[in-house]
Every structure is written in structure tokens, then in C-alpha cells.
């Protein structure tokens, strides 16, 4: 039914994606249907191809941009349950660290995968992360650290989150991190790249 829309997302054609989305809305199609079977269907293909290194990062970003633009037309019309169908994720680079390249990529990919994201930015105090996650009823918190000094602050940060909020899932990422380290500090998951972060989020959010 929406064959051309996923294709426009895969190609990263923002104008075409918006135009088709509007056309389907004008034709009376359900916004939730357009989202699932048009936009997310396209991003799923993008995600799979990115994961097996058949699509490259700039192409994925173009697709995510097309998705985000088309979503802009759907968001006001979606039912509350449809809008948050994928889940709510809070993203932040931990306090003391200002690196955000990886975090920004993950945020973009998660948005493309249909998640609601609040990106708190860099150098974020743990109290702010907890407060936001509680308020927004986050499914997953994503923490990024690139420095050896800040990476070691992840463990007490995770402890603090667990004391205050349950049952939120916590995933971590950043160049010096490893799966072994993530397990040691009590994270629910670790992803070495943006696409794997999306798959991890799906698993953790259970949606």
C-alpha cells in the first residue's frame, strides 16, 4: 500500500517522503498506518543495511532526516498510543565529558526508528538525567562517555539511577568502553555503534 514511501526513506529523499506522506493523509489513510508501514518500514530496511555495512552513515542520516520531516506531518495527528509506540529514550553525555558525536548518531538513528528522544546534551549532571527520566517515564536511558575519567563515573551514576527509578533500562556507549566493562558497572547493555544501539534499545524497551 505504501511502497513508494519506504523507498523514499531508503533513498533519503526528504521532499518525496513529505509529499507522499501528505498525499496519503489527503487520501484518508490512517496516520498510524502511514507511520508503521511507510516510514518505520523504510527505516527498518535502512537499519538492517547499515548493520551489515551495506549503507553508509551519510546515507543513513539522509534517511533519518527524511523520516523526521515526514514525521512532522504525522505527529499532530497520531493518537497518544501510536506516537509513543516505540518508546521514550533519554540520551546524555555524562557530566565532565563534552564529546557527543556518537551520542548524536544514536539519537538520530533512534528517532528514525520511531522512538521519542530527549537529548540532554553534554556534560549533564546525573540529577538532571534522573529528573527527566522520571518525568518522561523513560523506557531507556542512554549514557555516553569518551574519557577514561568520565567512563569510571558511569558506575556510580548507574547506581544512583537504580536507587531512584525502576525499572528503567540503562545502556552505555563510548570509545573506551567494552561489553565487559558495561557488565561490570551494571549497565543493561552496551553498543559499539549507532545501529547496534538501536537494536539494543529495541531489546531493552521490549517494543
Amino acid at each position: 500500500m505504501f511502497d513508494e514511501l519506504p523507498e523514499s526513506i531508503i533513498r533519503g529523499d526528504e521532499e518525496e517522503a513529505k509529499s507522499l506522506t501528505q498525499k496519503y493523509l489527503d487520501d484518508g489513510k490512517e496516520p498510524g498506518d502511514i507511520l508503521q508501514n511507510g516510514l518505520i518500514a523504510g527505516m527498518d530496511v535502512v537499519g538492517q543495511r547499515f548493520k551489515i555495512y551495506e549503507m553508509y552513515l551519510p546515507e543513513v542520516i539522509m534517511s533519518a532526516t527524511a523520516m523526521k520531516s515526514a514525521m512532522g506531518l504525522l505527529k499532530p495527528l497520531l493518537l497518544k498510543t501510536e506516537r509513543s509506540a516505540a518508546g521514550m529514550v533519554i540520551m546524555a553525555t555524562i557530566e565532565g565529558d563534552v564529546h557527543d558525536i556518537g551520542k548524536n548518531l544514536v539519537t538520530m538513528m533512534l528517532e528514525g526508528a520511531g522512538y521519542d528522544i530527549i537529548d540532554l546534551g553534554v556534560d549533564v549532571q546525573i540529577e538532571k538525567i534522573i529528573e527527566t527520566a522520571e518525568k518522561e517515564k523513560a523506557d531507556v536511558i542512554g549514557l555516553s562517555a569518551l574519557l577514561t575519567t568520565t567512563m569510571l563515573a558511569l558506575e556510580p551514576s548507574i547506581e544512583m539511577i537504580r536507587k531512584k527509578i525502576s525499572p528503567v533500562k540503562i545502556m552505555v556507549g563510548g570509545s573506551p568502553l567494552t561489553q565487559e566493562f558495561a557488565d561490570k558497572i551494571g549497565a543493561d547493555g552496551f553498543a559499539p555503534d549507532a545501529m547496534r544501539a538501536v537494536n539494543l534499545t529495541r531489546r531493552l524497551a521490549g517494543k
Partner: protein
Amino acid sequence: MFIKDFTLHGGLDKGQVDIMNEKALYLVENVGVNIPHEGIVNLLSDYEGVKIEKNMVKFRSDLVQKALEDAHYDLPDYGKDRWIIDAGAHQTSYYDLDTHKLRAPTIKDLIDLTILGDALDAVGSAPVVPLDVPIHLQILSMHKISYEYSRFRCNDIYEHMDKPTPECADYLYEMAQAAGKRFTFGIWMISPRSFDKNGLKVAYHLLDKGVPMWISTMPVAGVSGPITMLSTLLQSMFEHMAGLTMLNLINTKGNNYIAPDDAFEADPFDMKFSTFVYGSAEYTRATLHKISLCDYYNIPVIAKSLNTAAKEPDAQASFENGVHTLIAGLAGARAFRTGGLLSCAEIYSAEMLVINYEIIEYIKNILKKEEFNDRRLMLDEIAEVGPGQSFIGRRSTFENFRKEYWEPELFNHSNLGQWQEMGSKSAWQYTTELVKKKIKEHEYRIDDEARKELDRIYEKAKKDKKLEDSFKFNRGK
């Protein structure tokens, strides 16, 4: 007719560097950088030629020129006449020597790797972060071990160690004085066009101590810099110039310079794997451009040719390091870094450091000047040794064979049968043995008096709550 010196053509010519210099100055004067530190911005506001809008700061070209002219680079004596291997730094994943599996490095690894580095005359920063040491003591340990077990490390223009908090910097300053070592402070910029505010905080704290300060930045093409390597180099030039000018205006009691380790660094980014990619063809080409730029600004050249995307000390690692180092050597580089690193600086490998050393020796021997004279043409020898005879037993062979041929320590020249008799060891296995031997045999230690003083300072630091708290970014404040 005569054997000429080896030469390399290519890279940026002077006219092109002139253009890039002009464009970089334009960016510093008209586009500016973000300096997120009120105290520093206030200091800068005292200067004519500095334009400030909130935290965006622009510097007039003459201030930049002055900063470039004022910078001086105190190369150590050993950096002037020998080939330098600047070993890599701060890694948190390490190949275990016995299992060849990756694990977190410990204080024992730090000691062993520092000893190994010194056995190879390596300079630069401490090799690994000892993750079994409390976080607030890690950097102190890295400096202390470097001072105790190495003649050169953390003590020259090749080092670029972090000093993450003012309290930590104060202890390191005290340790450097006790050990008679060089203390500097460096600020890393965060591309595009900003600074790590923690770095600015520590710099501000050190301003009245006459500490030499350096600036470094590493924009990544297509991510924190534009997609072409040339444009990212230009951004790197602009950021370096702006950072150096800032330092020159605020750190008036110390020498300020562009850190040679990453001078005009511009990194390629692999869009397939979303990761840095050292050792690539583009990165090697960028090294040539960097060498041109460093020559232009009279900055000592250090080629970052010893980094690689390879995950093990394997063929990819050796090829990338070898080719890159050869090209850099042909272009005039005689200092090379980041020895021992793998996987774009995610891993430290003792074996890779030894392989790097061997690669450098190999290339040094390719490029060494060869005498062209009758003594070496050996006309008389040729005439005297008759048909069917051999030169093996000749006096000239005995007297010259060691001088004429470099004897590698690692690269195996045995024949197949000899190799099999010696155990058919792989390069990695053989290198591991060599690593252990060097660590066991190397004897340098700092004198007892200095060591005791370092121990005293370290013990004081262990009990210092203020130091410990300065590392607590997220612990229920």
C-alpha cells in the same frame, strides 16, 4: 651518476600553504571560536584586537602572527639527531602477554610497558591507564611510573598527558619538581571551534606559575570538520591558531606552543563503520600535508604513522605502519608516533611497540646515506677472487659484514628449515618473547632520593579528600 638522497614529490607546496595560512587567519579574525570560561574571556577582553560576543572570540591576524612567532619548541637533545619513537598513550584495553586476549590494564602492566618503552628509547606519554587504581590516582600513577622507570617519558615536548582537575595538576607539578622533570599543560579543543571547559578551568588555575602550555585539536572530516581532508586541515589550522593566540594572551609567564604530537591533525572518518580510521591512504596523505605545514610554521615534525585500524599486530598493522612511516620518512620526518597502538588507539599492544621499533629501524636503514667510493666498489676484490672461489673467507667480508647489513632483531631472516627447528613460531609469538626479555633485562630506575620524594607525594595524594572529590563528577553532590 652519483647516488642521490631519496626525495619525495607531492603534498602541499609553499604557494598552497600560503593560501591556507591566509584562509586560516581569515577564520580566526572573522569566524572565531567559543571559549566557555568567564575568567579567560575577561582576561582576553583587556586586549585590543580581540572581539568578544558572549563566549565567541575572534582574534585579529597580527595577534595570531605574534603568537606563532613567540612560540618556541624546546626539542630535547635526543630529539635533534636521532629517530624518535613516541609511544602511544592512555589506553584502557591491553593485549595480555600470555593469553593474547584483551583485558583492562593494571599498575603492573603500566610498569612493564614503561620499562619496555624505555628499553626501546621511547618518548611520549604513559602507555596505559591502570584501571586497578582509584580514578583520582590514575594520572598521578602514570606520571610517577613514567618518572621512575623511564628516562624520557612525560618529560619532553612529545608528551601530551591529561591533567583533568586543578588539584591533580598541583600534585603533578609537585611531582615533576621532585623528579626534576618537565611540567606542561595542554588544552584540547573540541571541534568544531570550542574548548573542553574543564581544560580551560585547569589552565586558568595554572596561569601564574610560568607553566609552558600547548594547544591541540583533532577535527574529524565529515563529522566535526568538513568532508574533505584539505578543509578539515584548514579547520585544524584555524583552531590551532585561535587556541595558541588565546594562550599567548593569557599565559603571559609561560611559553605557549602548538603541540607537535597532533600539530594540524585532521582525521578521516570511515562512514561504513562510523569510526576514526588511522592508517588509511587519506590519513597518510594528510601526514604529508602536515609535514608541509609544520615546516612552514617551524614546528617540529612528528608523523602519526604508527597508528593503525588493525585489531592485532598483524599484516594490516605492519603494512599501514610501514608504508605510512616510509612515506613520512621520505618527506623528512624523523619522529613517529603512536607506537604500540592498535585499532585506532583503542588498544595497547606491547608486541606492536616492538614491531613499530623494528619498522623504524628498517626504514632508517633504507634511507641512510650510502657512501659511494672506491673502498666500497671493491674493484680489487672482484679482480682477486677467481672463478669458482668465494668471498666468504675474505678479510674484507669479515671486517665489513656487520657495517653493511642491518641485523634485525625481530624480522626473521632464517630459512624454512631453521625456522622449523626454532619452533615454527609466528611473528606474534616471537615478538612476545622479545617483549618479555626486554622487560626483564632493562635496568633504568630513577635515583632513590627522587623516588622517595615521589612516594611521599603520592602517599599524601592518596589521603587527599579534595583531590578525590575533584574527580567526582556524578556522585550525589
